[in-house]
């Protein structure tokens, strides 16, 4: 589990929190959490950004509320309470999306309600928000949400480019014949396999240099 630095007084500490969430403890590539939405919605950049934003919102809101009630909730029922809080915010997202962005709601399908069971959110609630003050929990939610969004964007750019030769629906490289398999299920598995291998390699190289 990620442990953000204890103090946020200096700006370098705040910077450390960001590198922690975006790179060192990236929820997708390093902690390997939230795999289902990661693979399911990254077939286009538009879906990935929308899912990232929705998860970010739920993550920040649930972290704040869980941090606020952390001393009121008995230990035995905490998980159930967290799930209920998360489900409430997910329902807000779901209804808002249905009302204002119906086409997006259709293309994300059941993965909008399934944000409830995204392990990143429950993991942050249990590992961070239940033990820390409100502002820190909010920042933690924001950073982890950004790390998730970043990972989704990276995967979706690769998949949309290779799979349909488009970025955000616009034509990309002229004359390149797209490989449809990349926007289908197998492509999702292949893309994350090689991105994860690359991330691990870079991390290991940095580690040996420091040592």
């Amino acid at each position, binding site marked *: 589990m990620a442990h953000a630095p204890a103090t946020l007084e200096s700006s370098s500490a705040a910077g450390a929190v960001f590198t922690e969430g975006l790179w060192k403890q990236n929820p997708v590539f390093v902690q*390997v*959490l939230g*795999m*289902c939405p990661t*693979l*399911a919605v990254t077939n286009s950049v538009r879906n990935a950004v929308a899912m990232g934003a929705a998860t970010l919102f739920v993550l920040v809101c649930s972290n704040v509320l869980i941090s606020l009630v952390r001393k009121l909730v008995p230990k035995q029922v905490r*998980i*159930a309470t967290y*799930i*209920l809080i998360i*489900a*409430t915010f*997910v*329902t807000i997202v*779901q*209804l808002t999306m249905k009302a204002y962005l119906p086409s997006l709601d259709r293309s994300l399908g*059941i993965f909008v*309600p*399934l944000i*409830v*069971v*995204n*392990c990143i959110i*429950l993991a942050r609630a249990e590992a961070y928000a239940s033990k820390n003050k409100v502002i820190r929990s909010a920042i933690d939610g924001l950073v982890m949400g950004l790390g998730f969004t970043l990972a989704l964007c990276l995967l979706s750019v690769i998949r949309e480019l290779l799979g349909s030769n488009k970025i955000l629906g616009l034509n990309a490289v002229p004359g390149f014949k797209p490989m449809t*398999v990349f926007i*289908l*299920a*197998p*492509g*999702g*598995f*292949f893309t*994350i*396999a*090689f991105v*994860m*291998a*690359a991330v*691990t*390699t870079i991390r*290991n190289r940095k580690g040996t240099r420091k040592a």
Partner: protein
Amino acid sequence: MIDVAGLIGIVISAILIQNFVLARFLGLCPFFGVSKRLSSAVGMGMAVVFVMTIASIFTWGMNTFVLIPNDVGYLQTIVFILVIAGLVQLVEMALQKFSPALYEALGIYLPLITTNCAVLGVALINTGINQFTNKGFTFLEALVNGVASGIGFTLALVLMAGIREKLELAHLPKALQGLPVAFVSAGLMALAFLGFSGLNFFR
């Protein structure tokens, strides 16, 4: 009148064409987490089939008899996750009391299932609009879909565990060891399962 052909269509679709793991991307956490050993994969698979079946029955009932008549369909997500969490807890306690042997076999996997998106996924698919009838499933269809989806999940999990047990002996580049190679194997399996999408005989 029971539409047997329709039910068979649902079974084939849930297991092969729209396999929960390999086509729908549901339940990936246990798929990669519990697929290192064949024996634990079988245990997890059985637990998922069990919980999915019960969850299908209860969430369908909840939706049809409580949520829709009271016009509170927007509470679906919250109600379903609570029903599933409660059910898993109940199943765990009941197994512990009445079937210690089965509890021994499934026990450690049961708590993990609450946050398995495949279970909430099957509940949402059962009550949502589906490709077969353009409306929600009937009770029997929901039940069949729940069982078949669980079997589909188990099939993918067991196949994956078999592959990963063999992969442990393979010489791999350092970067690919562990999860990346598991993702590649899953991709190849998904590619194979893509072949089943030609089976469109009931549409």
